[in-house]
């Protein structure tokens, strides 16, 4: 919602095709959870991803995006999916497993082997560049 531009050029739309989580973003913001967005969902998405959106709101939606199976927890399977998407599956299985274990080890405060929203927020608010990376400029 930042500036005044209301028309997307084809290139701009193309340009956002590289995000590994594009499908997830659409799903997280759409009301039906399948990626079909109404205009309002769409506006919502951009408002959350705008620079001005508060940190906690961003964290909440980031959680939704990374929660692939929509069970309100980021479990190991979600983490593995995330890693593979981020690295284009270039890490070996062992490495992926190790990374996921480390993440759970670092963030999971209640030892249930998965990350709740609370765990996630606890981690993400301390991240130095979360705010600077989790937004889109139009």
């Amino acid at each position: 919602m930042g500036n005044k531009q209301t028309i997307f050029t084809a290139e701009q739309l193309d340009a956002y095709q590289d995000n590994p989580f594009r499908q997830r973003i659409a799903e997280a913001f759409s009301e039906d959870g399948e990626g079909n967005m109404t205009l309002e969902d769409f506006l919502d998405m951009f408002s959350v991803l705008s620079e001005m959106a508060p940190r906690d709101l961003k964290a909440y939606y980031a959680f939704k995006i990374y929660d692939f199976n929509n069970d309100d927890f980021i479990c190991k399977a979600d983490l593995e999916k995330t890693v593979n998407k981020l690295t284009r599956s270039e890490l070996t299985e062992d490495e992926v497993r190790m990374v996921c274990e480390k993440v759970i080890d670092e963030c999971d405060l209640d030892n249930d082997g998965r990350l709740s929203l609370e765990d996630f927020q606890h981690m993400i608010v301390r991240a130095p560049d979360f705010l600077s990376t989790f937004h889109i400029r139009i």
Partner: protein
Amino acid sequence: MPPKRKNNTVINLEDVGMEVDAVSDSGSEDEARKRSKNRRTKPQRRAKRVSDDEEDEEDEDEAPRKRGRKKKAKPRDSDEDDEEDDRNVKRKGSKASRKRAAKEESDEESEDDREKKKKGGRAASKKEKEDQNKGRKGNVKKKEGKDKDGEKDKKKKNGKLNSSSSSSSDSDDESLSEGEMEALKEQVEEKKKLITTLRNKPWRMKRRLVLLKEAQEFVERFEGALGKGKGRKLYAYKVMMTKKLIKFKRDFENFKTACIPWERKIKDVESHFGSSVASYFIFLRWMYGLNLILFGLMFGLVMLPELLMGLPYGSIPRKTVPREEQPTAMDFSVLFEFSGYCQYSFLFYGFYNSERMIGVLQFRLPLSYLLVGVGIFGYSLMVVIRTMARNSNEGGDGAEEGEFTFSWKMFTSWDYLIGNPETADNKFASITTSFKESIVDEQENQKDENIHLRRFLRVLANLMILCCLGGSGYLIYFVVKRSQEFANMKTDNLSWFEKNEVEFVMSLLGLVCPPLFETIAELEDYHPRIALKWQLGRIFALFLGNLYTFLFALFDEVNAKLEREKSIKNETEWLLNQYYANYSLHFNTSDVPPPTVDPADVIRGPCWETGVGIEFVKLIVSDMQVTYLTILIGDFLRAVIVRFLNYCWCWDLEAGFPSYGEFDISGNVLGLVFNQGMIWMGAFYAPGLVGLNVLRLLSSMYYQSWAVMSCNVPHERVFKASRSNNFYMGLLLLVLFLSLLPVVYTIMTMPPSFDCGPFSGQEKMYEVVMETIEQDLPAFIGNIFTYATNPGLIMPAVLLMVLALYYLNAVSKGYQQANNDLKRKMQLARDEEKNRRNNKDSTNQVMMDLEDLLPNKSLIPPPVKEEPPPPAVVNEKGSKSPKTKPGAAGKGVNLQKDVSLAAPNPRGPVTRAPGPRGGPPGNARGPQPGRGRGRGRGGPR
């Protein structure tokens, strides 16, 4: 808009509104009260809008307060939210409803329903969120807004009376009291604030739009009435300007980043090859900057003045090619050796004239030459040390001990701003690389090993490498000795091998030793980052031998030249004397004109300074050639062969033997460092050398980054470079010091050539300074100089410096100690916190047993019935944990005790699975002492 007209319309509207209200909601006490409260301000037509408006107000009220609270008591918020969630679902209503007494429950319900209907389309989570919002607001309201409420209640009562007594309150409108006016203004301000802050509210778009419309309407309507319409434009202007400013700042940042040279290239390399390879390129870039400045000094203060104001080429012997060399002076092979025209050009020491002042500016070129020559060292020293200090401030040897290294990498490393396929590719690569780097670090941490074996192997490896170094050192010494003997013999009866023995041995050592060291280093099994440092140090020691032989040969040559020069000097003097004698004898006069000889024919000395300069330049050039050829053959050709012959070869070339090359960090870094050492040493004798080096660095930046990207593969274990390049810098400093020595030695002791260079005619080079002090500066400065060089003054100064050094060293050690302590404490605190949150059931059986021993065990409720918190227990637990803590023996036990005594986790999976919490912003962050479920967590943090 003129306020008057506005007023009129308002009144009209209100009238209408009142009528409608009266018709539709006449029975509703609720509505009436509300209406009266806003009697002047809210010409509502529909009840729905009333509720909405009120909601607005409340939100505005909350906005700043909420933000304030967020910082201090966010966790508490969430706890309260949790606790009151259920209730709040029912109480989901506006402020008005909350202010009302309990008897009006039914009204609330109806309004609630209305609202639900209105916003029925929302997602469930959203609704929950809102609920929580409201719940929180409600709490705040209750606690903080007591006095306000009171006031408003009063108002409300007034309004009630009014509305009930007179349905059409035109008279009231006229008689707006001051207070009401103020309130109105406040409301308008609040609305305005809402309009501006609406964007960063965590609401759904629909709600935002509705609220925005409401607020805009409100402001539109009443701003005129309050005579504040003017301010709006200004405000809009201000907002616009802030936006512009932000944009400008962003653009400026981008511009600054774009100004850093090769940033993109380096990022490219870093994303594919890891930070360790990138660190070499960063070092190269830094070196380029340094050399550019050195070149600026040299060019601006020495070369340019001589070229502009000095005598032109061909005017004096030192600026002319001698007659016997002239036929071949322009040949390429000669120029390539830097003799011929090159030798007698401004590139070398010999070209510069010894005239004290030149040109209209009276530029003291010899003085400038000496000062620049020394100043280059001074400046480099300063820059290197400053960079080292700054780097060490940034700190860290790369192994960052962040709490959430992997999590942050996973969840925040993707930059959602990326909108370019190429950048995206790089980002993918860089994320993969950084994961790999962290994995290597992590593996290193987890490695549990036989420490004794490891130690033994390390000692063994060091011993072997010491043997290697000692052996090669002796070999160099032996060869140099032998070559000196050969030099005394006639060159005819020496074989080719015997002539080039030194070079041969040196390059053989350089070829064999580094891989040997690398192989031996495998024994040590260090982390690759540390292994790189060791490797660098060892090869550095090896190359020192190289340097030593080079300097040795050079000094020999210089001494020989000095001998020759002496004889030539005598010869010319003798010739000159003869000429004078003949001339006076012939013409019988003592007024002898100087001999008229063409400058090309004058007998001249060998000019050892230029010779040294040429040696250095040749060395740099040949070094450059070798480096580039190595890259071309060793990397490019190999890559081509591996890539294309692989189709028709017996084994897999890519995976098997030749494979692709890896980027040799240690070799390249050391090459750069030693190269720079040559530059420092040679710059005094060949001012053009710095310019040459700038070109070399420039080309090698492009060439090497291309070679890396196209023909190398990443290291097998990509490791994170230390964030500070201080090890490289340390090597550079050492080389700087080493190269400072010979130059200063020559300046202080060697006699300059008698017929070339800016110091010709002087006994020693530094006499230029003395001369200037004596002749051009006022006398007292000379005195000061004499005093300052008095040993009696220098000794105490040195002593003072040593003491200061000692003191500062002690201080820095103290800081480091404190730093480490704090780090450990943080780690401890973190572990403790984590343990406290952990459920006690799974891990620490010991704790359960310990707990059984406690006398008041019965008071501690089992985790199952957690919801009703007996406050007494809270206290007891809170007081207990610090008491027991000091008694615990080991650290581990201590921590675990904390777990069981002070922190039964209220959200343990045993008691109940933490349900999906549609957490809104401002949700819990960490458990805090609070009411309800937060109990028992109030242990000392």
